[in-house]
């Protein structure tokens, strides 16, 4: 080892102490608010009262259930819309790809508050007064969530399609007598399952915590519930915030698991 290299490795060791500090400061910034929320939720006189109060509150469960229901509807609708479209664009109408990509990119550019502003203005009056009824407002909420999910759902599915030979799969299925619904449901969808599932869990995480659109549509969703709770109670909001964080955590963990599995599956099949 030359003197120069020895000096360099000593310098690197000193350097790595600085990097530890950088990392620990960052990790502290991430964890302290979570610890503080946990500690705040436990400040009640009766231990765990914040949690028992929340978990015994039927309103909590109904809001949570409402948002979960919206999330499921959003995922189903989004998959039903995106998978056939992405498949069809790849297979039959690649010249329309720029149009579809532009549309799926728009929700990045349109902030949710602007989207809901437009939706309310369009659907509050004739000819389609969706905002006037509960069911109509919920339908509008789900539609807005589907719009929010388009960018990453489309990208995930399109990437998934790239790794399979959809052309050959389609021709094989057709020569066996399959129709379009069969091809999409039983050939294409199972092959992009990993991409669809990670898109679905991300949608779940986003819908469960969404506030802006649900609030302006006056929907009994989880986000507005937590917001109201935060203004009216002391310890319960801390408990519900942590539950909300836990839901996001579960969704992300599922994405990680699905991602590992689907990578393994794709390489096992070996289709390029």
């Amino acid at each position: 080892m030359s003197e120069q290299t020895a000096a360099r490795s000593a310098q690197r060791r000193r350097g790595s102490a600085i990097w530890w500090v950088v990392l620990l400061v960052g990790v502290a910034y991430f964890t302290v608010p979570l610890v503080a929320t946990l500690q705040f939720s436990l400040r009640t006189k009766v231990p765990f009262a914040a949690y028992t109060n929340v978990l015994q509150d039927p309103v909590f469960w109904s809001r949570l259930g409402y948002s979960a229901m919206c999330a499921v509807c959003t995922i189903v609708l989004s998959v039903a819309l995106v998978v056939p479209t992405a498949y069809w664009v790849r297979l039959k109408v690649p010249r329309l790809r720029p149009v579809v990509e532009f549309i799926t990119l728009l929700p990045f550019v349109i902030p949710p508050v602007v989207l809901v502003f437009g939706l309310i203005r369009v659907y509050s009056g004739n000819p389609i007064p969706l905002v006037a009824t509960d069911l109509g407002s919920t339908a509008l909420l789900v539609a807005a969530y589907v719009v929010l999910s388009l960018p990453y759902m489309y990208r995930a599915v399109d990437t998934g399609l790239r790794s399979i030979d959809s052309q050959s799969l389609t021709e094989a299925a057709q020569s066996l007598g399959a129709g379009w619904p069969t091809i999409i449901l039983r050939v294409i969808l199972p092959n992009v399952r990993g991409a669809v599932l990670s898109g679905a869990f991300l949608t779940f995480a986003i819908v469960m915590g969404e506030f802006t659109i649900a609030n302006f549509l006056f929907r009994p969703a989880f986000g507005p519930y937590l917001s109201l709770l935060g203004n009216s109670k002391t310890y319960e909001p801390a408990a519900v915030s942590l539950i909300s964080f836990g839901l996001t955590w579960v969704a992300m963990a599922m994405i990680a698991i699905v991602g590992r599995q689907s990578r393994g599956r794709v390489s096992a099949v070996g289709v390029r």
Partner: protein
Amino acid sequence: MTAVTATATTQDAPDARPGSRRSWAWLGILPFLVFSGLFLLLPISFLVIGSFVDRSGSLTLQNYADLSRPDIVLAFRTTIEVSLVSALAGTFVGFLMAYAVILAGLPKWLRAPLVTFAGVASNFAGVPLALAFIFTLGQLGLVTLFLRDTFGIYLYQQGFSLYTQVGLELVYVYFQLPLMILIIAPAIDGLKRDWREAAENLGASPRQYWRYVALPILMPSLMGAAILLFGNAFGAQATAYQLTGGTIPILAVKIGAQISGDVLRNVGLGYAMAMGMVLVMGVAIGCYIVLQRKAERWSR
């Protein structure tokens, strides 16, 4: 076969059955077009048209001229400031953290948990995030009380408040930083060890390596990330709403107030504000896409 030449660049398989059916193939994406038309394009068109119409229904540019009202200029300025400060802080610290676990020689196993946590934290925004910071740095927050009881420093007597622009920026960094880690990690992966070794063998100091090799390569990624973070903060509404109500003039909160009632006393002005927001976001995302393409050159 003009269609085939047009699609040759998109590296896709040519149409399986060209000819008479080709002209009807676009019908396959009709459901998608109808849906996005009804719930994305129509609402936006409504706002676009509305922004050019005055109360009597005739065409006007007055709504855009009204954007120069002091309160609206202030809202644009504050929102841009908050987005810029939180984006730069997120870019800088996020890059350092990602670099620390990827290339700086810290143990390799640190990376996976950090990236997983970044995935969760970047989605932990809005109402629960605002509340979490109130429990941390509010008047009765854990850190506030800790500093008061241990060091005798009461932040709220030192001029600090969570419910100010600085406080809001501090909160925004919480979802900016992890997003930065997620998007910059692949770019740092792309910094090849060979380049560093080549530079060192040619006698370059670490500073020279960064100045002439690493930073120029990373620059498009860093700038693209900073711009994406800017847009990420610019469109946010829930966090600011929950934290400050409306005391800090954030555009999204102001538009929200306009949805609930005609606070601007002029609907057209609300539409013009929304268009202003979309314009800023459009420029940001456009720049991001261009820079992203530039950055991809190095990963090939």
